[in-house]
């Protein structure tokens, strides 16, 4: 009888402990930086590279960095990446004209901000 009571007590303690652990985990998850924050926080490596060159290299930039250019949202940035993957690196800024939705005016607005490395 005493043995059964002991097991019951241990089981209840284990359930309580699990509940506590779950609550702690949930709390920790709540205080993690939001996805948005993690997505857009400047990456030190990218920032360092940008500060040195002073321009966004269209052949190296990732999606987030491309989104910093005027007239470029996530959709167009994704198209640039796909084009790069399909055709290899851009040989000139003008070649970006081939990407759907990006015209000469947009490319002109990147003057001094973007380059092809």
């Amino acid at each position, binding site marked *: 009888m005493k043995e059964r009571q002991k097991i019951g007590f241990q089981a209840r303690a284990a359930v309580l402990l699990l509940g506590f652990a779950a609550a702690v985990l949930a709390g920790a998850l709540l205080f993690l930086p939001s996805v948005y924050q993690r997505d857009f*926080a*400047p990456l030190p490596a*990218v*920032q360092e590279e*940008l500060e040195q060159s002073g321009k966004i290299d269209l052949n190296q930039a990732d999606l987030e960095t491309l989104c910093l*250019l*005027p007239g470029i949202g996530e959709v167009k940035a994704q198209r640039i990446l796909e084009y790069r993957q399909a055709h290899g690196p851009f040989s000139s800024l003008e070649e970006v004209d081939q990407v759907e939705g990006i015209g000469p005016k947009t490319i002109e607005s990147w003057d*001094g901000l973007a380059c092809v490395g």
Partner: protein
Amino acid sequence: MTDLHHQLVICSAESCLGSPARWLSSDLAAIKLYQMLGGHLILASDGAPSSIRQLYRQAGLQLPVLCWEGNWLYSFATGQICGGEPLPGREMRALARDLLEAFPSASMTILTRDGRVYLPRINRLAHAQLKKEGCLYILSELDAIPAPWYRITFFADPSLFEKIQKYLAEKDFQNYQLCQKELWLQFLPRGVGPEQVLGSLWHDWNIQPENTLWLGCRALGRGTLEQLGRVVAAYDASDPVRQRAESRLPFLHSGCVGECLYNMCKETKA
């Protein structure tokens, strides 16, 4: 043109970018790029730091925000007001107690270093103002409010102001500056103000005043305004700012802030 590391942009959040929910993605992108290229950008807000926290996260801004009528910088990283002398502690606590006793219908808010606003007593004027600013407050006994204090705002019926001023004049304690607005009297540390904040930023970051862009509406002292390299007036800018400005933002959400920052990035490297 000097490099972006030695340039400072102060941009009024509400007058130039609008409410956080309506920020243009182009403005946001330009701010991020400007920062990533090494430029210093600080937002000035009419609200409390809590009202602008999310906006800072979205923009990836890592510098302090200029708050409380441009009088102090608040750092989200440390959760504290950066720099600036607080009010003289013991004397102000005694003065606050005296004032609350002498004017039972008045209310008071106290700003502490962590940017929190404490209320030893509330009335409808204080409540309305704090609601307007989007400021969260803590009701607390005067003695329980932690030091140091940076600002005491005394809310009372304006008809009482003359009496209060007389009451204050009788006290042999003048170690503060008093600022009167429509519905409140503010006790501030001596020498505090946007000019002093700008001066310390220029000094700390080794930035020349002429490499500063003032994008906004808030007036500065004439001397400081003249020192700035470039001033762009927001649509609701004060008269001195309008007169000094080279250009104006036509309306909110015009994308002009982004354009301005992109141009700075281009010019700097040209």
